[in-house]
Every structure is written in structure tokens, then in C-alpha cells.
């Protein structure tokens, strides 16, 4: 079994990239033993379909002329016994695969041939054509499949092919629905607009753009529906309107067990029924297996995760009086080949009551990961490999999840980037606001509701009483973010963490949101950590700033120092690239390249490959975080630089 799977994985003669993606799929597919078993069974089925003589020792139609060896149980000659005419049941079961696979082929050709083009047409055209197609389709869909098959049999002739024609038509309705749904969804994608703008014709777009995206779900459906087709075929044969009474069809064999009226005949149920059950099961398991392996993220779960790590002792002490203090935090992700990618290393920060700490850096710099790791939410398979976290004077690095849940939501409020997505679309806003109040305080329902209205009023949502009974989709992005802030405030947290809270909002709404956060902070005196990639937002709202690059802190400073005298070349480069820093229309300064992935971080200074000031020393020696007054900077050459205020220099 496993031989078969590895052979498939290795022999794919594709270009390297595609082969890698594909072998990932096969590896995932055959990691599940049930899927392997199902695949083996389906392979046997196909073998029996192509060359039944290879597997079957006897002629399935030839009985025992002497009629002495009828209704036998399993024996050396007849592994699965014989039927009423002394025919070898095992051979009949093998030959039965012919009927089963033929049924599937006929039904699937009809179902896909009709269903997929109709679904594509219906979904793409929309409007009246779509309504007519779907109306007819729904009517057919609601009819029992066996009934449709019978109708076709009555019109044509009672045979397995005509029965399967009917089944195919019935199954086509499933494919119409699936294809139309995928087409409708894909049609809205920007790349379809882009294809139209390029000038591709609708048939070309359907064939080259939409169909490939349909294939995965189509394959899964084919596997599952194949199982159903076999079952229906057997049912029809059992009823005597499918295969002929003499044929070694599984359904007919089941029927014979009934017709033979002898207790010994009962055994016939076992081989035919077993084949039927196993085949249907195999198709369903294979369908499930394919569906599960098509998920992109499934691979990570195969990597081994160290359960408990012995953390090295932390040298620095926690800042006293800080709400949150992080020391030397490091997070590792297991990588292929037993390696570990350190996505965070030596991150230390602290934030005090009433203070706003801005954390800034490009995407991939580790800003959000730092917060997740500090709050006990390191995403699997990542793990804390070093460091210590103290919240409100209490060591929380390895707090059990249950105790964390009490702290998060009560003492720590979170605001997210996508305000509408952060709310549950199925629950009224009022109920979501009340939830954390009911969990974390001993308020009654009516008290919680009154408090929820108060909170909405505090974040300046007009008409709070009415808004409580509305659903999230009735809120604009800005109003939804106010609800997000209200939820974060519900239990008077000591710390508010805002992860890109304004990135998804309009600029005008961004300003209002920042003002609201500042107001709320002043009133409640909590500490705020503001994560953003926008230095403008930092200049607006932060007191102190932490600049991160490639999983490390590269500079910390007060907001005025950071902008008037940036010390790290990365900070300066970030400031320079902002269009706000330039009056003219000339080329903007850029930071060449991108933040490298954690697997490819350079040995020396991680910013060196993109730094215009990098020397050989930068590329070889690892820079440490050095103190300059109350600020910190991670650059071996920082003392040589005298970066002034960024503005207007190169306009």
C-alpha cells in the first residue's frame, strides 16, 4: 500500500515547482490509512473491471451441471461458496465489478456532460437564463432518483444502461448546483475582471480560468456520487429492472438470495452485500480523503511539536510597574528536516499604565506574532522557545489556557484589523457586547444590557439602544470598529492591544477612530499597544515606539526622538519611503527587496541585504541591541550616523 503511494509521489514527471506542490498533495492524501485502504479497494475494483479473468478462477455464468455443489459455504475450491446453480460466488463478485464500474461510467458521463456545462452557463449568464435553468433543475432535483431511472427505463427498455442514463440525469442536477455555485463565486473574483480586461472571450474565461478552480470540488463530488450510483444501480437490479436475472451483478445476486427461498441461500448476501458496502464506503472515504488533502495548511500538522520546552534562564528583570513586560521572547516553528525557524528572537518590551506603545514594521516583521506569543496564543505548530512574560506583576509565561482565558477578555482587550469580520455575523451586536460581561462579571442580563448600551454611547455610536438590536452587517466599517473598541473596553481592561485597528478603514474614519482610542485611554488610564505599519499613525497616537524587523526589535525610542533622530537605517528608510515625506513628484526612495522569510534570515544583521549603509562587518557579525541614553538600537554602525528629521530632504 505505502509502496504504491510513494511511487506515485516520486514519479510525477512535472516541472520542479508543480511536482513539489503535487507530491505534497499525494503525501497528505496517503497519510490517512483509511484513504489508503479505500484507494486500494478502488484499484482492485478497476482491475476486476479491466481483467476480471486475472482475479476470478471460475466462469461466473457456468454452474455445476451435476447440481451437487449448490449453496456451499466457503471452501478451497470456492473461496466464497456457491449459489443455487453451483456457480462460484467469488468469481461472480469479481465479475460484478464490471457492472458496477460500467454503471458509474455511464451515469458520470451523462451527469458531468450535462451538469457542468449547464452549471457554467447558468452561473455565468445569470439573470433570466439562470432562473429558468435552476427552476427546471430544482424540480428534477426534488424527484427521487429511482423514479427518474424508472421513467427512462419505461421510455427505452429495461436494462442497466438505460437505468444509468436516468441516474445520470438525476445526478446531473447535483453537478449543475455545484458548478453554478463555483462559477457564481469565481465570477466575482478580480482575476475574472482582469481576464475580461485582457480581452479574453467568455468561453475562454470559463475554460481556462473558472474550470481549473472547479476541479477540486468536482473530483470530491465524483468520488462520493460514484458510491451513490453503485448503490442505486444495485437497488434497481434488486428490483429486477436493472441487470438481467442471470448476470453476476451485485444487486441481482442479492435478489437471488431472496428468490431462492432456502435458508442456505442466505449466505449469498454476504459476498455481494460485502462488495457493495465496501465499494460505497471506499468511494466515500476516498472523497473525504481528497477533500482533506486539498487544504493547503494541512501539511503543518505533520511536523512534530515539542510539547514542553525547558526555557533558558532570562537575564533581564521585568520592568517594575509595567502592565505587560516581555523579556527575551523567542518563538520557533518546526521546519522540514528537523530544523527550526525562529520567527521571533530576543524580543523585549514593556508598557506602563496610561502609555501608548507603538509597534511598527513591515508585514512579516513579527509584530503580531509577538503579541500572540505574549498572550499564550502562539499559533501551532509554533512554540515559545525562550523568554518570560509578566502581566500586571504576575509571571504568566506558562499559564494554563484556562487561567489565560480569564485574563484575556477581562484584563486585556483586543481590537482587530477587520472590524466587521471580528464580529459574529449571526448574533446581534448587543448580545456580543453582553457576552464578555456575563462571562467575566456577575452582572444580570438586564444590567449587562444597560452596560452594553452605555459602552456604545461611550464610543459615540449614535442611538445606542436601537443599535444593540442590529446585526454586524448593518454597521459601516467605522461604526463596527467602534463596537470593537466597546467590546474591548467592556470589562475595564488594564491593557488594550490594537492590531492594525485602522488599516481597513477610510482615512477620515481612521482619524476618528484614533481620536476615540485616545479619549478612551485618557478616561480609563489603561496601557495601549498599537501595532501598525503606518508611521503616520505612530506619530499621531504613540508615546513610545518599538521598531521591528525580521523578528527582532531594531530600535526603541520616544516618539519625538524616533522621528527627529532615527538611529537605525531601517527606521530612516521606512520614514523616507512615505509619500507624505515628499513634496514633489519625483521617484520615491525605496527599500529594495522584501522582508525575507524566517527560513532565509541572513547570518549577520538581518537588514544588511536591504541596507544602503551595510558593510562586510554588518554581513558577518550579529548586531546586539545597544543602549543609547534611554533608547535602544540594533546596528553596529549607529554611532556613525546622524540621520536628521526625514522630511523634504530628497524632494
Amino acid at each position, binding site marked *: 500500500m505505502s509502496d504504491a503511494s510513494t511511487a506515485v509521489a516520486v514519479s510525477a514527471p512535472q516541472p520542479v515547482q508543480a511536482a513539489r506542490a503535487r507530491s505534497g498533495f499525494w503525501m497528505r492524501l496517503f497519510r490517512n490509512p483509511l484513504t489508503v485502504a479505500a484507494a486500494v479497494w478502488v484499484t482492485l475494483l478497476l482491475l476486476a473491471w479491466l481483467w476480471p479473468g486475472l482475479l476470478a478462477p471460475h466462469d461466473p455464468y457456468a454452474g455445476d451441471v451435476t447440481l451437487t455443489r449448490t449453496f456451499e459455504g466457503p471452501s478451497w475450491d470456492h473461496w466464497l461458496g456457491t449459489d443455487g446453480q453451483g456457480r462460484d460466488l467469488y468469481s461472480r463478485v469479481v465479475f460484478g465489478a464490471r457492472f458496477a464500474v460500467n454503471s458509474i461510467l455511464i451515469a458520470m458521463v451523462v451527469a458531468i456532460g450535462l451538469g457542468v456545462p449547464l452549471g457554467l452557463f447558468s452561473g455565468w449568464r445569470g439573470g433570466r437564463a439562470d432562473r429558468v435553468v435552476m427552476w427546471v433543475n430544482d424540480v428534477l432535483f426534488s424527484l427521487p432518483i429511482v423514479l427518474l431511472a424508472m421513467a427512462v427505463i419505461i421510455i427505452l427498455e429495461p436494462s442497466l444502461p438505460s437505468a444509468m442514463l436516468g441516474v445520470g440525469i438525476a445526478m446531473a442536477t447535483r453537478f449543475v448546483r455545484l458548478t453554478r455555485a463555483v462559477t457564481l463565486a469565481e465570477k466575482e473574483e*478580480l482575476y475574472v475582471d482582469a481576464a475580461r480586461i*485582457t480581452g479574453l472571450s467568455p468561453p475562454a474565461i470559463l475554460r481556462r*480560468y473558472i474550470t481549473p478552480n472547479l476541479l477540486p470540488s468536482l473530483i470530491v463530488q465524483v468520488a462520493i456520487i460514484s458510491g451513490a450510483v453503485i448503490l442505486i444501480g444495485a437497488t434497481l437490479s434488486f428490483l429486477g429492472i436493472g441487470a438481467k436475472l442471470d448476470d453476476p451483478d451485485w444487486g441481482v445476486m442479492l435478489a437471488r438470495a431472496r428468490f431462492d427461498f432456502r435458508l442456505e441461500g442466505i449466505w449469498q448476501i454476504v459476498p455481494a452485500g460485502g462488495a457493495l458496502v465496501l465499494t460505497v464506503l471506499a468511494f466515500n472515504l476516498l472523497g473525504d480523503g481528497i477533500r482533506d488533502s486539498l487544504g493547503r495548511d494541512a501539511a503543518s500538522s505533520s511536523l512534530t511539536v515539542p510539547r514542553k520546552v525547558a526555557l533558558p534562564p532570562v537575564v533581564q528583570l521585568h520592568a517594575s510597574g509595567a502592565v505587560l513586560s516581555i523579556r527575551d521572547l523567542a518563538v520557533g516553528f518546526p521546519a522540514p528536516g528537523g530544523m527550526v525557524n525562529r520567527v521571533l528572537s530576543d524580543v523585549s518590551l514593556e508598557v506602563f499604565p496610561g502609555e501608548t506603545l507603538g509597534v511598527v514594521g*513591515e*508585514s512579516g516583521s513579527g509584530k503580531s506574532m509577538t503579541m500572540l506569543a505574549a498572550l499564550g496564543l502562539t499559533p501551532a505548530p509554533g512554540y515559545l522557545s525562550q523568554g518570560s512574560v509578566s502581566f500586571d506583576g504576575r509571571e504568566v509565561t506558562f499559564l494554563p489556557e484556562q487561567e489565560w482565558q480569564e485574563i484575556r477578555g477581562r484584563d486585556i482587550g483586543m481590537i482587530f484589523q477587520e472590524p466587521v469580520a471580528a464580529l459574529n455575523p449571526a448574533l446581534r451586536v448587543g448580545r456580543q457586547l453582553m457576552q464578555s460581561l456575563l462571562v467575566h462579571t456577575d452582572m444580570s442580563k438586564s444590567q449587562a444590557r444597560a452596560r452594553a448600551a452605555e459602552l456604545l454611547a461611550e464610543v459615540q455610536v449614535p442611538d445606542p439602544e436601537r443599535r444593540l438590536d442590529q446585526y454586524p452587517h448593518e454597521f459601516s466599517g467605522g461604526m463596527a470598529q467602534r463596537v470593537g473598541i466597546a467590546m474591548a473596553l467592556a470589562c475595564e481592561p488594564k491593557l488594550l492591544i490594537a492590531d492594525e485597528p485602522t488599516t481597513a478603514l477610510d482615512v477620515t474614519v481612521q482619524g476618528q477612530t484614533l481620536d*476615540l482610542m485616545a479619549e478612551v485611554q485618557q478616561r480609563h488610564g489603561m496601557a495601549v499597544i498599537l501595532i501598525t505599519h503606518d508611521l503616520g499613525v505612530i506619530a499621531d497616537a504613540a508615546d513610545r515606539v518599538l521598531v521591528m524587523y525580521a523578528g527582532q526589535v531594531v530600535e526603541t525610542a520616544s516618539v519625538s526622538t524616533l522621528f527627529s533622530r532615527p538611529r537605525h537605517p531601517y527606521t530612516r528608510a521606512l520614514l523616507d519611503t512615505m*509619500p507624505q515625506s515628499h513634496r514633489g*513628484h519625483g*521617484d520615491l526612495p525605496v527599500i529594495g527587496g*522584501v522582508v525575507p522569510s524566517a527560513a532565509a534570515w541572513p547570518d549577520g544583521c538581518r537588514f544588511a541585504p536591504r541596507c544602503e549603509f551595510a558593510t562586510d562587518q554588518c554581513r558577518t557579525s550579529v548586531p546586539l541591541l545597544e543602549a543609547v541614553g534611554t533608547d535602544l538600537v540594533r546596528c553596529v554602525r549607529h554611532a556613525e550616523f546622524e540621520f536628521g528629521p526625514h522630511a523634504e530632504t530628497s524632494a
Partner: protein
Amino acid sequence: MTAPFLEVENLHVHFAGRSRLFRSAMPTVKAVNGISFAIEPHRTFGLVGESGSGKSTVARAVLQLTDVTAGTIRLDGADVTRVPREAELAFRKRVQAVLQDPYSSLNQVHQVRTIVGDGITRHFGIKPGPEREQRILALLDEVGLAGEFLDRYPYEMSGGQRQRVSIARALAVEPGLIIADEATSALDVSIQSQVINVLRRVQADTGVAFLFIGHDLDVVRHVSDDVGVMYLGYLVEQGGADGVYDLPAHPYTEMLIASVPVPDPAAQAERRALRQTFKKDTEPPSPSDLPVGCPFANRCPVAMDICTELMPEATAARHGGHVRCHLHTSGPVLAGESVVPYIRSASTAR
């Protein structure tokens, strides 16, 4: 003065509310309400406004992706308001686009070779082969991507690299106009400036005209020669990019400027003070239920009685363009001057 490549005249785009069984007819959404502008070759026109201002609908109308309710769109003098099917291919060769989301605007199942090459095959009849390969490589080079990107799939590239591929795809058919609809909005600032520079170089090399749509006035001003400020389907102010930015004549333009935070704490404190003069808890009216008067009146800190009664006409502004605001003809009669001193004095007087 060269003749404009794109002229949009009095464009209206309304979406009729569909009436459904058991449901009352939905009101018509008036997304674009009579806007006019023109773009010459080698020049960039910037459209700026909040989400829901109708700026992307303008792009979709020009791109024939949505039906025009009224008005005219001309390309190189010829009417292209409604392009008949047989002329569509010729139209597509002249107008291309770079769309907002670098993740969903490229099909995951195709390599860069196909994404960029499709247009070459479609419009120049060059089948996949060495000649097409040469062209694709030249295009990738133009947008600053190495030849190894030919075999890449979108999921193997960063957001900035994907947007470069989108630009190469647009350039492949040698168009006269490229519409960049929020093409840099989803990118990191450092990457955004890379892509902006690529756009600038492409324009210098090919003379293509750009319609650059964005919500960040600082970015739009930087890339554009002229800008139009959109609010609820109306062009409330338009003119030279620097003029509009330095002497904004419409309070909404000033609100947009004041809202973009600048990376300088002292200057930002000033901007913050200015932005706080604008009303906080009023939302824009719905485009399906537009007010009689100025659509900005309910959010405007200096609105007068007339503003809720009458839609202002366009008047000349000091910066050389024009503005639709009653302040310039009634009340303080600013006569096209910058609105900033008036808003400041009005807010301190309160």
C-alpha cells in the same frame, strides 16, 4: 496642448434596485452623478475619495464592466460609452487596468508566463513560443522582475511582486490608458513606493495615460498631475494636484488632507487639531437616498442653511480648477480661495 486620450463627460451610473417576489422594489443606488474629466497621454489623473464615493464605479464604467446610465466616454475622440461586442477586442487593446487586491487579481492556477502572455496572444496573435517569451521577458524587465519569475505561480510571490506582474499584464497589449484602481492600497508603505516608481517609469517609457484611483490623498497627489475629489458620486473639487492639495477649496478635500497622518509628531499634532474640527458621529448619506442639497452638508463643520437646500454648482477655484461648494458664492464668499483659514477661524470662534 495634446488632445485628451480619455474624456469622460457628465457620467452617470445608477444601479436599479431589483424588485423581487414578495419584496418591495429596492431604491436605485446613484453611484456616479455627472462627473467629467479628461486625461492626456503622458499624464495621470488621480481620483480620490472614501469608500462608497463612486471612484471604483467610474473605473468599472470606463472599463465596460458596468453599464453607463447617462453621459459619454470618449477614447481618442471616438465614443466608447457602449462598446458593441464586435469592437470589444479593439477596445480592450487600448484600455487596461491594475486592480486593487494583488491576491485575488491573479488566477492562482496560472504561471506568470500565462498571465502576462495571454494578452500578447489575444491581441497580437503571437502563439506561445520563443517570440512571445522574449516579449514577456522584456515586460518583466520593465517592471523590475527577473526572468526567473516566468515560471512562478501567484502564491509564490509577495504582494509587491504580484502588482508588478499585474502591471506587466496591462502593458503587454501596449494600451493607451491604464486604470490603477487602488493598485497600491494593499501594500506595505515600503513596497508601495516601489510600485509607484514602477508606474512612473512605465509612463515615462511608453507615454501611457493613467487614471489613478486611491483613498490616500498624499499618495494620489504624489503620482498625479491632476486630481478629482469624489464624494457620493459627485466630483466636488478638481484641479492640478499640487494646487488642490495646497489650496483646497472644498471642506471635504480639507477633511481628506487632515485625515492622513504625517510621519512627524509636531506636524501631525496640527493635522489632528484640524481633523477634530470635523464632525465625528455623522455618517455619509446613503447613495440610494441622496439629500436635496450638498451631500457633504451633514458632515461639514461650516455648513450654512443653503447647503441643505440646494446642490452647489461648480465654480472656478483659485488653484485653476473648480469646486462645488456654496462657501464660494454665498456666506463668506470665498470666491475660490483656500477653505482652510475659514475652517480654522470658524472652529476657534466656536
